[in-house]
């Protein structure tokens, strides 16, 4: 069973800081797991998943005898950033991201757990912005640890597509003082 870490960020976040905290949390999860007969527990750890809208779930622990960070031979990372142009080609002033509080976090956890299970990976991290974003800001981070590159990359890609279509987020592009809700997603 994989360890899941899900967080929503109302303010700009640094994907690289998120990743650094994730590595620390993986090592700490191992410490907890080793004290609890292999069952991982995910206590809230300030700084691990920054932002007030945070959910953390552990569906199991890393392999006995090693933390996932030590054991993972493969890691796939995707970082998505806000484009400088709207879908109509105008200069983007801002991107507004609305979400359904509660369902959004729960749905991200369900999608991550299903995806992790089907690909047999060790750990999954999802960090997603909400609120008003500026061009160039990070909007989503998905990272997956696995024993092989195939499961890591496939899980990362599949989870990204799933959250684009099945997690309740809505984008509105602002340009020229006008906002327009986006219908659907950009092509893969």
């Amino acid at each position, binding site marked *: 069973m994989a360890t899941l870490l899900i967080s929503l960020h109302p303010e700009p976040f640094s994907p690289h800081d998120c990743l650094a905290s994730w590595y620390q949390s993986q090592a700490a999860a191992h410490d907890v797991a080793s004290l609890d007969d292999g069952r991982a527990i995910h206590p809230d750890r300030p700084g691990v998943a920054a932002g007030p809208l945070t959910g953390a779930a552990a569906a199991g622990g890393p392999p006995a005898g090693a933390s996932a960070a030590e054991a993972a031979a493969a890691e796939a990372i995707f970082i998505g950033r806000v484009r400088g142009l709207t879908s109509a080609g105008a200069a983007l002033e801002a991107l507004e991201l609305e979400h359904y509080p509660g369902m959004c976090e729960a749905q991200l956890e369900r999608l991550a757990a299903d995806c992790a299970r089907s690909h047999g990976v060790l750990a999954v991290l999802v960090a997603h912005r909400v609120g008003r974003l500026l061009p160039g800001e990070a909007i989503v981070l998905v990272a997956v640890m696995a024993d092989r590159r195939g499961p890591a990359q496939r899980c990362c890609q599949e989870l990204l597509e799933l959250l684009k*279509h*099945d*997690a309740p*987020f*809505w984008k509105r592009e602002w340009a020229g003082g006008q906002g327009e809700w986006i*219908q*659907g997603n950009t092509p893969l």
Partner: protein
Amino acid sequence: MASEIQVRLFASLREQAGWAQRGFSLANGEPPATPASVWRQLELGPLPISVRVAVNQHFARLDQPLQNGDELAFLPPISGG
């Protein structure tokens, strides 16, 4: 006794309707109320085929029977990531 649910709208649906959340009384009897029947009674026009529904924060079918205390949400096309 009348049953009451909460109805929530998001994004473009919320702005078109002019409200985000409201209580809604379900009529007792058969057939039971469903997301589709509630939408008709909201008088917000035809339900766009691209709109999905969630009941108690899980995706649900348009014909799922509703119960007292349910939270029903109408979700326009999702665009995350």
